[in-house]
């Protein structure tokens, strides 16, 4: 657990499901992630002592101990409880009473306090505004900035979709479409020579699949998520009930994303006239199952999409591409 950061600049992906930090050390970029989740357990000295001995990240809040980050999943399984999230739909959950404390603890664990003798820049990702929730985005962005400032960092934010472009589209001079399919949202950004032209988010993403599938199957959303991440592949037919239910809602997410993409581009009357077809990159945990890209491309090709797309490809490292893009933004600012 780092308490003092030694990196020159940091990229931070603040996702509904995971927090990922990217650090450049020499020629190499290193990533570290934590589940953006927590469980609460009753406070007792014995429990707290045990957690300390095992180096389990936790904090004490009144009569409860909060176990946050990666360990929360194990404790949720042990206690047969749902993990809780400090964020929902891409932004801090103002209704979750522990959200600020948890996110702060997670950031302290991931980033550490700034090394006073090194660079202090951190660029963190923010979603594009979901329709009807602009206020919550302001709260989200400013709160994260405040926490990072408190840790000693000079914090700037970057749109999540743009971070994907910075991470993956160097070969096209940072021109193209970046899509990050996360837990709470799918974020889309069209960029031209590194500058965002159109950004928006779609509120159907991984959590929608987990919750919908959990409702239908009677399973816990936790278990649906683990199944989805461990063994799900998207080929259209399953004999297993849970896989079949997941595939139905996955299809819904992809269809909704493609439809939103087409409508957004069509309704934006002044799109740039690109001199050549542009690439589209998919990233994020929700886009990872085998077959996702193929199905997305298939549906997109059936649309009369207003921009000619040269290729639809997966990010080289879908879980880390937004953090890498945020790091590129931080380093290119210096």
């Amino acid at each position, binding site marked *: 657990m780092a308490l003092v950061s030694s990196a020159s600049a940091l990229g931070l992906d603040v996702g509904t499901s995971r927090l990922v930090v990217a650090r450049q050390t020499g020629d190499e970029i290193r990533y570290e992630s934590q589940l953006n989740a927590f469980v609460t357990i009753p406070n007792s000295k014995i429990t707290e002592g045990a957690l300390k001995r095992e180096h389990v990240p936790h904090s004490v809040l009144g009569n409860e101990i909060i176990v946050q980050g990666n360990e929360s999943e194990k404790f949720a399984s042990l206690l047969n409880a749902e993990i809780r999230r400090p964020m929902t739909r891409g932004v801090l959950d103002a209704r979750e009473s522990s959200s600020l404390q948890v996110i702060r603890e997670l950031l302290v664990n991931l980033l550490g306090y700034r090394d006073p003798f090194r660079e202090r820049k951190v660029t963190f990702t923010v979603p594009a505004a979901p329709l009807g929730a602009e206020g919550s985005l302001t709260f989200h962005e400013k709160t994260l900035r405040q926490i990072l400032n408190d840790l000693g960092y000079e914090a700037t934010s970057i749109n999540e979709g743009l971070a994907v472009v910075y991470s993956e589209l160097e070969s096209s001079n940072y021109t193209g479409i970046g899509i990050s399919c996360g837990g709470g949202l799918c974020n889309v950004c069209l960029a031209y020579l590194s*500058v965002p032209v159109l950004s928006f988010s779609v509120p159907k993403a991984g959590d929608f699949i987990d919750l919908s599938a959990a409702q239908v199957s009677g399973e816990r959303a936790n278990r649906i998520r683990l199944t989805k991440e461990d063994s799900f592949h998207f080929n259209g037919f399953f004999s297993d009930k849970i896989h079949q239910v997941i595939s139905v809602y996955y299809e819904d997410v992809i269809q909704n994303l493609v439809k939103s993409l087409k409508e957004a581009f069509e309704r934006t009357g002044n799109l740039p006239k690109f001199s050549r077809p542009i690439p589209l990159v998919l990233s994020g945990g929700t886009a990872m199952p085998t077959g996702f890209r193929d199905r997305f491309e298939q549906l997109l090709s059936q649309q009369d999409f207003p921009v000619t797309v040269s290729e639809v490809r997966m990010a080289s490292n879908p879980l880390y591409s937004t953090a890498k893009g945020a790091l590129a933004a931080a380093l290119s600012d210096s």
Partner: protein
Amino acid sequence: MPENFIQPSDAVEREAAKITDPLERLRYLRRQGPKPPAPAAGLPEMLPLEVTMPRQTFRWTTWAAAITVVTAGLGLWGYQMSANTPAKTAAKLPALTPPTGALPTGVWQVETSATEEVYSNGLRIDLSFATKNRPREEYGIFALDGGTEPVSKSRAPHGIVYHTTESDLAPFEEASSEKLATLGHLLLRFVRREHSYHYLIDRFGRVYRVVEESDAANHAGYSVWGDSRGVYVNLNDSFLGIAFEAKTDNAADVSAAQFTSARMLTEMLRSKYKIAREDCVTHAQVSVNPLNMRIGNHTDWAHGFPFAAMNLPDNYLTTLAAVTAFGFTHDEVLLKAEAGRDWPGLVVADKLVAKAAASEGSTEVRYRSMLQHRYKDIFAELKRQSEKGNEPHSQEGKQ
């Protein structure tokens, strides 16, 4: 390309392609590339509103276009900040660039007496002229998407407006010390009597509290400002007023000591009230005239305010909500006050209004008229409330 999307020359793209290091190429493009109609990061991107709002009725969509106009402008600020656009004013005042060491995460009071307050960042406030006025009243925050009822209310100071006193000035030299002191003293007595500002910074950089922060000062009068939270109208209750003993036409005469004190005072107030950087603006940026529906009724700091020296972004880039939300226009007086300099926020605001009018199939005149009606409805209601409360909220006191 979108109308306000400035395409780079082919040379930029060719030059970028020659750069082999991806990071260097990104750095080059972010500095030399096109300027966007939407933000890169940090603030809500408003293009989604444009693309997700169904077009229902003329009036509704007109408001929707207004949201896009207002917030796309706010977004432009966000992009330009993240792109490290150099601040013109900062370039002129290199000696005033804030220190590069670790900035304080908070400023707190370390000493207080009957005559002085001392703060952790070195700020000293002279209390010998401090006075009360009427208590700060609850003020409304109006939605970016139209309507004449406030969407929320607050009593806390939300921003800072910087002024110049436009008072008589003596040459800033040792031989004029006595005259400088006398003029400063007379000015303080005047602004105290008129409750003109919350703070005055005299020629020597001394900070005087004039009106208590808990009270409203008559500094902003008819005024409008907008940020990502909404639009603020008549800022006496919502913004704190800081005045430099200075004349805006002779801003070069403002002393380094005055700017240093203003930075420390700004840091203290921002820390105390959690004031956002984008809400620290100049009087010329907020002042409006409801009679002729023009901005820039007062022109102090219409140009040349050293935002960078205040550790603030160049807020001249911020699109003026008075134009985009309420259809205000401007005239030759303001252009003259700008002294031929570009005011990017004003230029972009005008373009956005023209674009929104075109997208609605309306003329710019008709579109502005629709926006102006909204302002007049809000203004009439505020005036009614003011008269009911028997408080002249729109007073401005200036020598």
